[in-house]
């Protein structure tokens, strides 16, 4: 047993985990129709590789990774593509997302698997294989795994396998560890070798003794040098940064990557998926999903991506008073727009919710600065101060108080005696700051464009003037030649003219005679230049182009909208 480090704060809500661990993992029956969203990971949206009408095999790639920061998507079963179209995505917003709709043929006919011997294959190829097998972090963040599997540069690496699973209700990692521990260890082996990690630590909360025992047995059976470490049950012990802190004592700050500190952390489910992708050549097309909450038979299922959540709720027997579907746990999960959205790579848990299970929050009261939130904050923040600044729209100050270090774990809102939805305030402040940054960026770009236009016009004008000057110089030479063909003639003419003038008693004709052709040309050129300047010089905002006007109007509208949203939010908040 390694020395355990403590992280600050945390809460101990009722776990409700015992309900869904009574039965082993079951394979969810194949649904008739699967809707596979193309964007299921952090990064670029994969390009569809199939069209409506095409037949696909189980495990066939249907979405190719868009660049390296992306992961491929595969057909979860064999059948026919009936549409590639936007469908409601697995997200609270209920916005549509390009999805491949597959009608299953019931054959479950696999493409030929392409296993890779990871010991004899260059790491770059393994990373490509993982990307093309669609392997992403299955703890919920769905970050493409191949991007995290680079050997440490100048420090010894530690691989942390996260089996803590601290959110209430969720037991998919627990059951996976109990039933498929050896495959997790095999996946961990691949990751360890790719990272060149000196040690492998497997963190499991102490409310999962069976899982810890199974993992220990698997490590021993495979003769691996990995340490299973049991950590106290306290939400959010399974947060990557909290677990890294508990196991290694290292605190990874916001905006830094753990790999810079010599640690890389993966969910145990990801380790399992990596084993499947490399050793067996099977792409990621399914995962373990806990179905719990307001259901008759809570249980873990192995579910194909694209399966509607309602299919699972039906299997588990959702009770009649179920009025909502949550993805994830009750602390950090998301409300689904409807129960028919598909299971995706991020779906670790589907919870049937009801008023009885998740009663509406009592009315929000003013903050009494009791600091209950400070005591439970695992990021060591001052949540009540951030709330105060977010509410006052003093976003600069909120950032100064480390708003972006907030991991939105919800502990503060969980304990708040004034029932303030604190995390909502932080999300609001964060989105406002992002919106302002985008707006500023747009304004900067507009300004840069405007300045470039001015610069270009100035340059054009200079070029024109230069051309003109050249032309003038040329014409002057001709003119001089024409007006004064012989210097001797001028010398002769002048005294004669002066004499004549004197004789006539007037000098009126003298200037006419002394007109310098050079001067006339210069005056004409100045006049032309003045006219040109008048024609092009911008008069501040009066002669903006239509495009610029439209852009300014757009920015104004956006500002007004944000103000409106902020106002509504505040009104809601003060109700």
């Amino acid at each position, binding site marked *: 047993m390694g020395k355990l480090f403590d*992280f*600050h704060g945390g*809460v101990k*809500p009722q776990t409700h985990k015992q309900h869904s661990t009574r039965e082993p993992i079951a394979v969810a029956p194949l649904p008739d129709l699967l809707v596979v969203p193309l964007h299921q990971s952090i990064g670029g949206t994969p390009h569809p590789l199939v069209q409506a009408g095409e037949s696909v095999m189980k495990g066939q790639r249907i979405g190719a990774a868009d660049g390296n920061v992306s992961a491929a998507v595969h057909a979860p079963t064999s059948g026919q593509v009936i549409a590639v179209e936007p469908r409601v995505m697995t997200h*609270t917003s209920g916005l549509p997302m390009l999805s491949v709709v597959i009608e299953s043929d019931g054959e479950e006919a696999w493409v030929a698997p392409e296993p890779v011997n990871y010991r004899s294959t260059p790491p770059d190829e393994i990373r490509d294989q993982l990307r093309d097998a669609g392997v992403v972090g299955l703890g919920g963040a769905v970050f493409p795994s191949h991007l995290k599997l680079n050997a440490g540069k100048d420090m010894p690496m530690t691989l942390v396998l996260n089996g803590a699973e601290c959110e*209430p209700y969720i037991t998919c990692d627990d059951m996976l560890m109990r039933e498929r521990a050896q495959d997790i260890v095999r996946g961990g082996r691949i990751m360890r070798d790719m990272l060149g990690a000196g040690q492998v630590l497997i963190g499991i909360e102490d409310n999962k003794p069976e899982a810890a025992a199974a993992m220990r047995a698997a490590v021993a059976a495979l003769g691996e040098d990995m340490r299973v470490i049991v950590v106290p049950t306290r939400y959010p012990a399974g947060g990557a*940064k909290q677990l890294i*802190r508990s196991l290694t004592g290292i*605190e*990874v*700050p*916001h905006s*830094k990557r753990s790999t810079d500190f010599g640690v890389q952390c993966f969910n145990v489910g990801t380790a399992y998926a990596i084993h499947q992708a490399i050793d067996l050549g099977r792409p990621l097309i399914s995962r373990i999903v806990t179905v719990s909450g307001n259901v008759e038979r809570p249980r873990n299922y192995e579910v194909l991506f694209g399966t509607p959540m309602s299919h699972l709720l039906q299997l588990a027997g959702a009770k009649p008073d179920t009025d909502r579907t*949550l993805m*994830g746990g*009750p*602390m*950090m*999960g*998301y*409300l689904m727009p409807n129960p028919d959205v598909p299971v995706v790579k991020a779906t670790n848990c589907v919870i049937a*919710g009801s008023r009885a299970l*998740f009663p*509406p*929050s*009592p*009315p929000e*009261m*003013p*903050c*009494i*600065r*009791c*600091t*209950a939130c*400070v*005591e439970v904050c*695992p*990021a*060591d*923040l*001052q949540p*009540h*101060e951030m709330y105060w600044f977010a509410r006052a729209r003093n976003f600069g100050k909120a950032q100064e*108080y*480390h708003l972006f*270090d907030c991991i*939105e774990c*919800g502990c503060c*809102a*969980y*304990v*708040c*005696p*004034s*029932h303030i*939805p604190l*995390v*909502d305030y932080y*999300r609001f402040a964060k989105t406002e700051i992002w919106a302002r940054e985008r707006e500023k960026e747009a304004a900067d770009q507009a300004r840069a464009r405007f300045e470039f236009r001015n610069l270009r016009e100035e340059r054009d004008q200079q070029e024109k003037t230069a051309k003109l000057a050249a032309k003038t110089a040329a014409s002057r030479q001709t003119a001089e030649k024409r007006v004064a063909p012989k210097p001797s003639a001028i010398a002769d003419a002048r005294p004669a003219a002066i004499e004549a003038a004197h004789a006539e008693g007037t000098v009126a004709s003298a200037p006419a005679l002394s007109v310098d052709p050079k001067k006339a040309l210069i005056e004409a050129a100045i006049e032309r230049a003045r006219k040109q300047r008048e024609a092009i010089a911008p008069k501040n905002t009066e002669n903006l182009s239509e495009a610029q006007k439209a852009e300014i109007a757009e920015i104004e509208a956006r500002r007004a909208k944000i103000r409106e949203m902020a106002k509504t939010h505040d009104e809601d908040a003060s109700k």
Partner: protein
Amino acid sequence: MNNSPYIRQPASVQTVMLKVLLALLPGIGAYVWLFGAGVLVNLAIASAAALAGEALMLKARGRPLDIYLADLSAVVTAWLIVLTFPPIVPWWLTVAATLFAIVIVKQLYGGLGQNPFNPAMAAYAIMIVAFPALISQWPHSGLDFATQLDLIRGGSRNIDAITGATPLDALRTGLRQAVTPMTVQQVIAGGPAFGVLGGKGWEWIAGCYLLGGLWLWQQRVITWHLPLAFLAGIAVFAGALWGIDPGAFASPLFHLVSGGTLLGAFFIVTDPVSGATTPRGKLIFAVGVALITVIIRTFGAYPDGIAFAVLLMNICVPLIDMKTQPPVFGHKDD
């Protein structure tokens, strides 16, 4: 409720305030036992005045009455006012003090959670300045309930017959006698107001406040920082003076069990709204209150200085909080 978290711990402002009231009960019990039931009458008067004042202001401000009256915060303020006043003050003084605390110090600044000053202490400070005599007249322990009631109703006061000096008062008077100044030991030995540790009887009340305070700590309504730092501050500062001249200054133990020290430590300094909130800030705040309290008690014109000390430190809270922000996760070496 559309956003996570979807579950909440069963906690509310009402429970917090209710626990504070419950924690005061042992102290009130000892108070009644030692000084009679007059204090209960005052508690009732103050509670009613506080709720009425709160209701009036909530209505004027267009806030829901039911939620905010039920949070019990006004009752806590009312009780603290009564427990810092002598139990025989006339009813109108209690009402005026309570209304001042609720209407001006609390509601005019925005109500629950918004007041920069501790309402009970602000009320105490105003009243001791406005009515120094009434606030200084503490009954001797044998005063019967009928007389107490009569005094509360505004009956005439035969000062010598009804009052006895509080220990802090007796000490001050003794030490500052113009003709023959006494030493602390002489004052205590000769005074009927003094008991084993501090004031006669007051030791018991103080002990009961300590009991209630420890329960609040056990219930996680308060953290250890404020009471411990306050008590330690009192002990250290009083101890330093005592160390210089035990004849001229009272012992730290005397300071700890006299006046409002223990009530202050667990129920007044711990007011979350007007106090500091960072761990280090809490320590600075409480030590500051302790220092000013000892200074006022020793060198000032008022018998107890906790109210002024709290108000003075309330002023410093924004600065203290700003300057004592703890390092956040991952930035501890910055």
